[in-house]
C-alpha cells in the first residue's frame, strides 16, 4: 500500500513567531519544525506500513529549506520525500495551496493520503477537505483511530456529538487528530539514514501548474491589516468582602454564561 502524508513546515514555536510587517503574513524565516499533528499523521502512516507493508512518502509545499523538516519524517521511517518548491507559490492561500498539493498527490497515485488535522500556524487550515475535492476521493476527517482492511479504510471520527465510525473505499483521504497516536522519536540510526533516502524537489512546471494559479496571484483571500488585539476594556477587579461568590454569579449571569 502506498501512503502519502501531506506535511507542513511551520516556524518553530519560539517567541519570535511574528507577522512580517512587509507582507502581513507569517514570518517564516528562521528554523522550522514539522507541524505537530503532521507528526501524528506520519506516525500513523508508519504503523500502517509496519502492519501491512508498502511505502510512505511525505509531500509538502514550501521553500527549499522545508526539506529539513521532511528529513525528520524520513528519520522517523518514511521512505521518500517530495517537496514542491517554487517562488511563485509563496503566499498561497487555501485555494492555491490545495491546487498545487492536489497535483503533487495525483503524481504520487497513493492509495491513502493522510493529513494532520491542525496546523499550528494557521489554526484550522482545513486543507484536506479542499484537496479531497480536487482529487475526487472520499474523505474522513477528525480521525482518532484508523484501520485499513484490504481495500477499505475505517476511521473513528470524533465530533461534537460523539464518535461516528466511517468506512470508505481506497483510494481515500484521511485527516487524523492528535489523539490518534503518540509519535515515535526518530532513532539515531534513523536520523543518520535519512540523508540518503530519496528527496525530490519539484517545481510548479514539473506539475503542470501555472504560476498564476498559485501564490498571491492564485489566491482568493487577502490580509488587509494586522493589529494588536484591543486591550480588554472592561476588566473588573474586586476584593472579596464576603460577597465575592454572589458577585461572580451576577457577573456570569450578566454575560449570559450561566
Amino acid at each position, binding site marked *: 500500500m502506498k501512503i502519502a502524508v501531506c506535511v507542513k513546515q511551520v516556524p518553530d514555536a519560539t517567541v519570535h*513567531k*511574528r*507577522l512580517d510587517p512587509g507582507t*502581513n503574513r*507569517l514570518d517564516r524565516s528562521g528554523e522550522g519544525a514539522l507541524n505537530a499533528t503532521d507528526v501524528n499523521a506520519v506516525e500513523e502512516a508508519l504503523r500502517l506500513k509496519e502492519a501491512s507493508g508498502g511505502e510512505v512518502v511525505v509531500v509538502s509545499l514550501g521553500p527549499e529549506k522545508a526539506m529539513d523538516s521532511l528529513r525528520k519524517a524520513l528519520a522517523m521511517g518514511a521512505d521518500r520525500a517530495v517537496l514542491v518548491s517554487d517562488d511563485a507559490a509563496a503566499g498561497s492561500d*487555501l*485555494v492555491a495551496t*490545495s*491546487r498545487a498539493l492536489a497535483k503533487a498527490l495525483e503524481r504520487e497515485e497513493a492509495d491513502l493520503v493522510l493529513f494532520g488535522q491542525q496546523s499550528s500556524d494557521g*489554526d*484550522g*487550515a*482545513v486543507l*484536506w*477537505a*479542499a*484537496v*479531497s*475535492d480536487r482529487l*475526487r476521493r*472520499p*474523505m474522513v476527517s*477528525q480521525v482518532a483511530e484508523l484501520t485499513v482492511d484490504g481495500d477499505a479504510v*475505517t476511521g*473513528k*471520527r470524533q465530533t*461534537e456529538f*460523539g*464518535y*461516528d465510525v*466511517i*468506512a*470508505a*473505499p481506497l483510494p481515500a483521504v484521511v485527516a487524523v487528530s492528535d489523539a490518534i497516536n503518540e509519535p515515535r522519536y526518530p532513532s539515531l540510526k534513523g536520523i543518520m539514514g535519512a540523508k540518503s533516502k530519496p528527496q525530490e524537489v519539484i517545481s510548479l512546471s514539473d506539475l503542470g501548474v501555472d504560476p498564476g494559479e498559485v501564490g498571491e496571484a492564485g*489566491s*482568493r*483571500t*487577502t*490580509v*488587509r*491589516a*494586522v*493589529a*494588536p*488585539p*484591543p486591550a480588554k476594556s472592561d476588566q*473588573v*477587579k*474586586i*476584593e*472579596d468582602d464576603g460577597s*465575592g*461568590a454572589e*458577585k*461572580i*454569579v451576577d*457577573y*456570569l449571569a450578566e*454575560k449570559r*454564561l450561566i
Partner: protein
Amino acid sequence: MSTLVFLETHDGEPTKGGLGVLSKAAALGAGEVSAAVLGTGVRDAAAKAGAHGATKVFVVEDDALAPPLPQPRVDALEAVVAESGAENILFAASVLGADIASGLAARLDAGLNWDLTDLRVDGGELVGTRPALGDTVLVEVGWTSTPRIGLVRSGTFDPVESGGTAEVHDVSARFQDFSTQARLVDHLQEESSGPSIEDADVIVAGGRGLGGPEGFSMCEELAAALGGAVAATRAVVDAGWYPYSAQVGQTGKTVSPKLYIALGISGAIQHKVGMQGSGTIVAINKDPNAPIFDFADLGVVGDLAQIAPKLTELLRARQ
C-alpha cells in the same frame, strides 16, 4: 450583496452556531440573507431560519445527506449557491462545517477565511476579523473575488430572534460519485463523565493556591455545577496533585473555552499561553499582585477556599 448561511442540523434541529451566524448576517443589513438546510427530515428547521433573519431557506433533502458527512453537502451547497446566486457563504465552525466550507472553496475556486471572530461590510466589501499567533494579534482579512466563503469561530455570535418567516425553496442536487463513497457504519456516544478540556465550554482550573491535591475536589464540584471540565497548571501536575492529561499551558494543552475560571493560579506566561484565547476569564487568588489579574476579565482577590464552595452552592441553587 447576498449572503447564504449554512445551517447545520443535528437530529433535525439547527445548531446554535449556525443560528448565531445567521443572526449576524441579518444584522449586517447588506442585502438578502438566506439559509441552506441539508439532510433528511429537515424542513422544520426552515421555520427557525426565518425567525433568525433569513428571508429564503433553500432545502435539499436527499438520502445521500442522511449521514453527517461533509462531501455530499458540498455537492448540495454547490447547487444551492448556483440557485441563490449568493456572494457570501457563511459557516459556523464545527467539525462538519469546517470540512464543508473547505471542500466548497475548492469546488467553487472561492476564497475561504476561517476562524473569524467578526464580520463587517466596508464599501460594499465583506471584511472579516480573525485572531492569529495564539490570539496575540488581530488580522483583518478580505476576499479578492466572489463568492466569499467565511468560517466563523465557534460561539462568536449568539442567535437573535427577529421574528420573520422565510420562503422555502426546494433544490435538487447532483451528487458526485466520490461524494457518497464514505458511509456511516456506526455511531458511538461518549461514555465519559464530562467534556474533555479541549471540547469543554467551561473550564475550572486549579493551581498552587489550592494548597494541596484535596483542593481539586473544590474544582471538580464547581466544574460539575457548570457542566465543565477541570484543568491544572504545570506546577501542580509536577507536584502530583492532578493528572498530566489536565495540564493547560505552553507544554500542556491549549484551550479556548467560553468561560475559564482560574482558582489559585498566579498566571505566569507559561500558563497564559495555553488559555489566553478563552472567552471570559475569571480569576480568584489571594495575591493582589498575581499576574493573572492583568488579563482576567473578572478578578477576585480573596480566599478561594471560601469563595469557590459558595459559588458552587449558588450555582446549584439556580438550576
